[in-house]
């Protein structure tokens, strides 16, 4: 038997199939009449049976049955005595007729089943290809938006028309509803879509459900709650989709819903992880804070109570205690300032009020404020005289200078020189605060900017900082559109660089003036 090509037979229209059956049977009968002298009656029956089997194997059951009946008549008419009548003299031939009929119907039923199986297998193979292509694309989708893009594309290919995806939303009363916008703006479509999503079955032309709906609706539903629907507009030349495509679309919708569920689950896990991480940081912050705040408080309380109780304390001792109180309260002030700045940087509420100004001014304020801290650290300021004005927030940049200089003093032995320099680089000013201290632990050039990162203990027993200074610097510089980084050439100290872009604020000029006119006698 030749291989079955179901597509071949189903492509031929039914009328032609009956005609073909009649022609094949007639031709076989004609051949039998021509060869009558050489053939027995049994041979003739076999020949006609072959024709019936052939028809039944290639054509639909109707034409096959017709071929069987026709060949029985042909056999009776031409080969069963008396010849050329429909009268049957030997009742034994009736059995032959019955056999021919049974063979024809069995054959055609068998063929139909094989054909159906093949169709089914083909549809399944096609569905498998579609689903696997979709799965592959979904695996590459990083966000829910990507997933929806992929879904619209794949469903659109099968439906042959533009496809939009509509996900469930939370209504004001908290109930999940499909949005009444876009393709779902039409009330009837919205109802059909809602039904399809709930039932988990496609609806629209060709699906057997809501055939009169103007669009094809594919539910995006896995085992859990339905996620939404895909709405496809069928192209004008396509009145309905095939049952096979309906199944493929159902499978695709299930896959998309599963992908969305997976993503939601991942997002929940990530949120939980971040939450735990945040909790860990908060705990670290609390323990670090309580230590940093309690230490100066303990010194202050101790010194003050001694001053109160010990009336006969020598003057020098009283002075030392008072100085302790002063120094420790300044330390607390600095810590609290840093903490408040940290909160502002973290909350993203850093309002940057930029104004064109010379860097020298903010640096000057910082140096003055750190007069005591930097007492034993010679600071060289090397700002080129032609350095342009920079658009910065003076209070914030002052804080950056303070934190970087304090950081240098904290990690360098007394007497270490510190240099502040700046240079114009393309469209930004690059500032460098460098010291000749022990440098940065190799490999930690990035980590030192992280919150609560504390460098190794300083040689001069400085009180350790809270590990916030550099993090605040990074926050402030980033808010100015600049970059901050650190490097350390081994043994010769640490250098902190930051850039301040000159763009971002309209350029500002200063009116020229007769440069060297003496003030005397003029105004």
């Amino acid at each position: 038997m030749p291989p079955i090509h179901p597509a071949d037979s189903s492509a031929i229209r039914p009328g032609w199939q009956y005609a073909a059956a009649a022609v094949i049977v007639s031709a076989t009968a004609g051949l039998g009449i021509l060869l009558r002298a050489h053939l027995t009656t049994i041979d003739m029956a076999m020949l006609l049976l072959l024709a019936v089997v052939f028809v039944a194997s290639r054509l639909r059951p109707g034409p096959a049955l017709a071929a069987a009946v026709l060949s029985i008549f042909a056999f009776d008419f031409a080969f069963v005595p008396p010849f050329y009548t429909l009268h049957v003299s030997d009742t034994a031939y009736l059995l032959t007729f019955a056999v021919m009929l049974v063979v024809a119907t069995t054959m055609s039923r068998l063929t139909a089943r094989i054909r159906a199986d093949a169709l089914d297998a083909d549809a399944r193979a096609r569905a498998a290809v579609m689903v696997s292509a979709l799965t592959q694309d979904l695996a590459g989708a990083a966000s829910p938006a990507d997933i929806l893009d992929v879904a619209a594309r794949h469903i659109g290919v099968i439906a042959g028309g533009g496809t939009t995806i509509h996900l469930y939303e939370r209504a004001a009363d908290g109930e999940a509803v499909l949005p009444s916008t876009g393709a779902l703006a039409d009330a009837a479509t919205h109802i059909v879509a809602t039904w399809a999503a709930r039932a988990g079955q496609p609806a629209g032309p060709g699906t057997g459900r809501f055939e009169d709906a103007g669009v094809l609706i594919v539910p995006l539903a896995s085992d859990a709650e339905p996620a939404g629907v895909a709405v496809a507009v069928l192209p004008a030349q396509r009145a309905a989709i095939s049952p096979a495509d309906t199944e493929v679309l159902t499978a695709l919708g299930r896959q998309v819903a599963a992908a969305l569920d997976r993503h939601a689950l991942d997002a929940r896990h990530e949120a939980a992880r971040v939450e735990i991480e945040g909790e860990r940081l908060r705990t670290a912050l609390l323990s670090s804070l309580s230590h940093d705040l309690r230490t100066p408080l303990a010194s202050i309380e101790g010194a003050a109570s001694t001053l109160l109780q010990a009336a006969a304390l020598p003057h020098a001792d009283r002075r030392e205690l008072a100085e302790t109180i002063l120094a420790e309260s300044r330390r607390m002030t600095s810590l609290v300032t840093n903490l408040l700045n940290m909160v502002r940087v973290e909350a993203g509420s850093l309002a940057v009020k930029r104004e064109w100004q010379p860097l020298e001014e903010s640096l000057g304020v910082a140096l003055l404020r750190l007069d005591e801290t930097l007492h034993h650290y010679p600071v060289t300021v090397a700002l080129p005289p032609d350095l342009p004005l920079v658009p910065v927030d003076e209070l914030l940049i002052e804080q950056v200078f303070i934190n970087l200089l304090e950081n240098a003093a904290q990690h360098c032995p007394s007497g270490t020189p510190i240099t502040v320099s700046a240079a114009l680089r393309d469209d930004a000013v690059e500032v460098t605060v460098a010291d000749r201290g022990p440098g940065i632990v190799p490999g930690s050039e990035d980590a030192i900017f992280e919150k609560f990162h504390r460098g190794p203990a300083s040689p001069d027993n400085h009180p350790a900082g809270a590990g916030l200074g550099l993090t605040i610097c990074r926050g402030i510089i980033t808010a100015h559109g600049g970059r901050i980084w650190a490097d350390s050439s081994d043994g010769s100290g640490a250098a902190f660089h930051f850039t301040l872009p000159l763009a971002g604020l309209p350029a500002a000029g200063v009116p020229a003036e007769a440069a060297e006119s003496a003030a005397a006698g003029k105004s």
Partner: protein
Amino acid sequence: MLTPAPSVLIIEDEASMRRFLHTTLRANGYQVIETASAKEGMIHAAGRNPDIVLLDLGLPDADGLTIIRALRARARTPIIVISARGREQDKVIALDDGADDYLTKPFGVDELLARIRVALRHAALPPGAPPRPVFESEGLRVDLVRRQVFRRGEEVHLTPTEYKLLGALIRHAGRVVTHRQLLHEVWGAGFVEQTHYLRVYMAQLRHKLEADPARPRLLTTEPGVGYRLRDETAELDDRAIAFEVQE
């Protein structure tokens, strides 16, 4: 002959802060009137006629600015506002509305006394009094009659704008002057937003007058607010000396 001790009205709601101010000021020879509320503060300001007012801007019962305006409407009594760091805009508004100076919490005793002395000194000058002919501070000497500027004995040449700026700062010597005020006095009413003019000329002045322009001792920056010209003579503790003599 000794003048009576100047009286200071403290309007501050925090008890510990009031106690610190009270103790410090009394120890330095001032009479102290104190109150925790704006309402009572206004009554004292009118009834006891203080020589100077220390006003906390963060009072619970009234906006500090309302008090400044009300006080200014009545008298020229100097007002020094006290406020927290990070509230620069409040200070600027307070100063532009008539406050004479400010202190940022936390502040030291030296700073507190210097501000009060400078403010009292300015208040002691009758309105419209001719400016002193010579200003001297930290090695700077300005002869305002001859329009000559000397730095450690050597004459320095200033441009007309630089000299105008220095002149404006001398008129307010020892006190903070807001950006707006300086721009108004030097460039005119149309230029009060051009802060960068001021910054550029300030930098020029520092390069001509300061020993180390990167660490100004004379022309100091009040971040976010304005500038101050240090006035050594006004900050000097002449009253304390007088009290020691009295005792």
